[in-house]
């Protein structure tokens, strides 16, 4: 195999599984270390730089980082990354003086942002400090979008939401509430330098079955949640059926319980392994005694004299091979009585307000054609981000889309190429302090994942907005931070220094190092000390070693970053170095006469 090119930032980035898995590339191990040191403000700011809404995401993020976490590959549960993010947010002091500020003097460019959700807010967050005027059009009387009216307050309290949204609005964004944009043409005619569409995927999918329109008691999940959020609905029947098992379904069933429902069933068409909801959301719903019923396919709504009696379902049986459904059979039919039905079977984009003769092209599924790098539509100067770009994803994706779109908007307004993007940056810095001393907690802590404490069931349903999760206490936080393996403290190898004494190979507690003769990948993996289990994980191959022309091979999969290889190396051929990865944002594209270091380079690792 060829010598691994570790100067490509992607190599070490991929080793930091959580950061690689996070769409916005949050520097997770760095902020976990800052929390360990009690530096909550710093931890919050590290978060905010990439994900903008740490307090919000610390409660309701989809957490792609956690399934990616290295700890999870070692027969254990991943680090509770999301919970720790909340610790940083909950315990921070006043950080307002560290927030970006908009200059008094504007640059004369005006950007319209459609929708006041996470995507538009992030664009404003990135562009306001550069002197742009950002005008947000929000259909509701408050900002937040999906974060406010699709996520119930018992998961995300309004104070948390308001505080982080206000950080951005207070920078000087102009926001028009109760202003639904009805015509893209009219908006374009107003002469904005750029338009960003961050209006989400606001249409809940329909279930067109007999009886659907014969009663008032069948609701569309996201619309129903929105009505609850704005107090238009404050009650629901005793028996409620939720159709679908995504995260919206989980929010609907738990909200129903808080509006007076006594018996809530979530009806799934398929077996549990095909559920779309996050595992923890399913657990939280089941903790509240929601029954999740599998293998029931909706057949019809049973309505008598305009009153919903219940629903009938077909009982399904599936033949599953290798995690895929090969065949299905209907084995019977069942009637389940209910007072209300809530449909939570997905969302889709909807753009009735964009005229089709403006040069903004749509695909056959009515989704806009959006460039995956620049987020520009087929009409120059019109950008899409968040759920409105590629359909429903989640908040953290919306934030990343918006960071990229903000760069494009800036380039567009300056008349520069959108495709020319700055490269990601990598900085490595040794963590050696002296004999047996490293400036990070290198020892492996075998502690198990801490469990989030919840408000007791008997108190939970008192008020709709009572937050269920209590957050980690000091003791839980202290334990959990030590579970992080510090994957960003990289093992950096210098082949010219190695004397092939094998000390690192022998000390490695996971046998992830091997010195062997080189060969192609298939051949090389047969000679490694431990079997390669995850072929997705990178393999490090050094250059030829001086004495025997063999190569050092490291399977990154099981490295626990304990630093023992470097500890035992007599020539410091191995060193533990912090990889500080930086991902340019719009501010990094500003070039002025006195711009030396770009803003993204100014953050130093703690």
């Amino acid at each position, binding site marked *: 195999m060829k010598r691994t090119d570790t100067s490509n930032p992607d190599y070490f980035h991929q080793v930091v599984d959580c950061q690689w898995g996070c769409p916005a590339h949050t520097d997770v191990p760095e902020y976990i270390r800052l929390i360990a040191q009690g530096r909550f403000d710093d931890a919050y700011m590290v978060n905010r730089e990439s994900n903008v809404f740490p307090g919000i995401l610390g409660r309701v993020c989809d957490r792609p980082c956690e399934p990616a976490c290295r700890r999870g590959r*070692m*027969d254990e549960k991943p680090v509770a990354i999301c919970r720790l993010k909340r610790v940083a947010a909950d315990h921070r002091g006043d950080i307002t003086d560290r927030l970006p500020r908009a200059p008094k003097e504007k640059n004369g460019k005006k950007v319209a942002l459609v929708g006041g959700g996470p995507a538009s807010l992030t664009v404003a967050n990135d562009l306001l400090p550069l002197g742009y005027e950002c005008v947000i059009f929000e259909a509701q009387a408050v900002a937040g979008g999906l974060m406010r009216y699709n996520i119930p307050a018992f998961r995300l309290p309004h104070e948390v939401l308001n505080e982080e949204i206000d950080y951005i609005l207070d920078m000087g964004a102009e926001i028009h509430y109760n202003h639904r944009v009805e015509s893209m043409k009219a908006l374009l005619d107003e002469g904005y330098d750029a338009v960003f569409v961050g209006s989400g995927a606001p249409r809940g999918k329909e279930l067109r079955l007999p009886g659907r329109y014969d009663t008032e008691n069948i609701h569309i999940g996201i619309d129903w949640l929105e009505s609850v959020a704005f107090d238009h609905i404050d009650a629901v029947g005793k028996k409620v059926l939720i159709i679908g098992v995504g995260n919206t379904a989980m929010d609907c069933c738990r909200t129903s319980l808080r509006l007076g429902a006594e018996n809530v069933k979530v009806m799934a068409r398929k077996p549990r392994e095909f559920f779309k909801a996050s595992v923890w959301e399913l657990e939280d719903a089941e903790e509240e005694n929601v029954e999740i019923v599998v293998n029931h396919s909706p057949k019809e709504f049973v309505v008598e004299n305009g009153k919903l009696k219940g629903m009938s379902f077909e009982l399904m049986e599936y033949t599953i091979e290798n995690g895929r459904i090969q065949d299905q059979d209907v084995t019977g039919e069942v009637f389940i009585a209910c007072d209300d039905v809530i449909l939570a079977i997905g969302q889709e984009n909807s753009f009735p307000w964009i005229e089709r003769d403006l040069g903004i092209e749509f695909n056959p599924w009515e989704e806009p054609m959006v460039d995956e790098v620049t987020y520009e539509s087929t009409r120059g100067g019109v950008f899409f981000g968040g759920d409105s770009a590629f359909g429903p994803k989640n908040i953290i994706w919306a934030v990343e889309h918006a960071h990229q779109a903000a760069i494009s908007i800036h380039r567009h307004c300056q008349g520069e190429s959108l495709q020319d993007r700055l490269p990601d940056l990598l900085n490595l810095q040794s963590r050696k302090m002296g004999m*047996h*001393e490293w400036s990070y907690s*290198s*020892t*492996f802590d*075998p502690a198990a994942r801490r469990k989030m404490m919840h408000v007791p069931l008997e108190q939970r349903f008192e008020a709709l907005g009572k937050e269920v999760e209590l957050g980690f206490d000091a003791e839980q936080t202290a334990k959990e931070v030590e579970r992080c393996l510090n994957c960003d403290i990289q093992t950096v190898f210098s082949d010219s220094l190695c*004397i*092939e*004494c*094998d*000390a690192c*190979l*022998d*000390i490695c*507690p*996971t*046998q992830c190092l091997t010195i062997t003769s080189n060969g192609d990948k298939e051949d090389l993996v047969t000679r490694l000390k*431990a*079997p390669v*289990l995850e072929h997705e994980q990178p393999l490090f191959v050094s250059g030829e070693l*001086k*004495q*025997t022309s063999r190569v050092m091979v490291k399977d990154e999969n*099981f490295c*626990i970053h*304990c630093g*023992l290889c470097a*500890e*035992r*190396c*007599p*020539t410091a051929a191995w060193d533990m170095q912090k990889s500080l990865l930086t991902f340019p944002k719009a501010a990094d594209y500003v070039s002025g006469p006195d711009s030396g270091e770009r803003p993204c380079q100014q953050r130093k690792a703690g």
Partner: protein
Amino acid sequence: MTFARPKINLPGQKVNEIGLALRDYEGSLSTLCAGCGHDSITAALVQALWEMSIRPEQLIKMSGIGCSSKTPAYFVHGAHGFNSVHGRMPSVATGALAGNRDLVGIGVSGDGDSLSIGFGQFGHVIRRNVNMLYLIENNGVYGLTKGQFSASADAGSTSKKGEVNQMQNINAVATAISMGASFVGRSFSGDREQLVPLIKAAIAHPGCAVLDVVSPCVTFNDHEGSTKSYAYTRDHKLRAVEADLISPRAEIKASYYAGDTHPVRLHDGSTILLRKVDPDYDPTRRNNALGYLERHRSRGEIVTGLLYIDQNVTDMHSQSRTTAMPLKAMDYERLNPGSEALRELQKGMK
């Protein structure tokens, strides 16, 4: 700050025939210098013992004094051990194995412990052919006392400060062969592929198996001018004859016999397969071996591999016609028949 090696249960970990993982054959964390050849040898011992599925309680580890003699603490923490007086490991080993012939004995010594203070003991354990692995971790230097030349340092090699060694060296393998050892090998700590099979063959051999392993001292003897450094040993190492141990249960594949190979069958049914790398070399003839060693020594080459083997030398227990039952398993009355029995015995000698 101290550091510890964490124990981690990884998926896909292999176990041997008696259900133990490699990690079960490890000992305490080494306190030797980082990069010490001795640690590499420890790892080779761990590997070999694991592959042979030796029960930890079946093993006794013995040593004298020196960097090398710390080694027994670093492998198989479930085994018996005895850290004895400087140069006196052979006496302790002889006693232990006389008392319990069922033990697998490993003595770890160094060039100072075996070729200086313990030179006399070294000769006699070979002569008695005590059934054990006698492993010399040979670095040519007194590491614990800051790097003076040891008895195995080559004449003309230089110390770390540049001083030239004037004295002739004691060659451990040539000495052992000329003293009538039944199994003599030499290897290098940095060549695990050669060392592990050699250790296995030495443990299986029913007699005193001497293994001289060049083990660079990273702190005092890994410089230019040293003849025991990593770089020098790699440059001047010559593989003469390789050994593989085939257990009695294993099927002997035809591919093992490719090239110049011949089997040596051991009493326990296992086989040591000798593969001659140099056709000129015959490890079963003493004068051929000694001549070959001397020819290559004069060229500055370090001959490695299984250098001499003789299955027909009787071991200590056969020489002394001792009982087949380990003494520790014997009843007290049988082991110590009393003064009356002694008087009866003496009567017959008058």
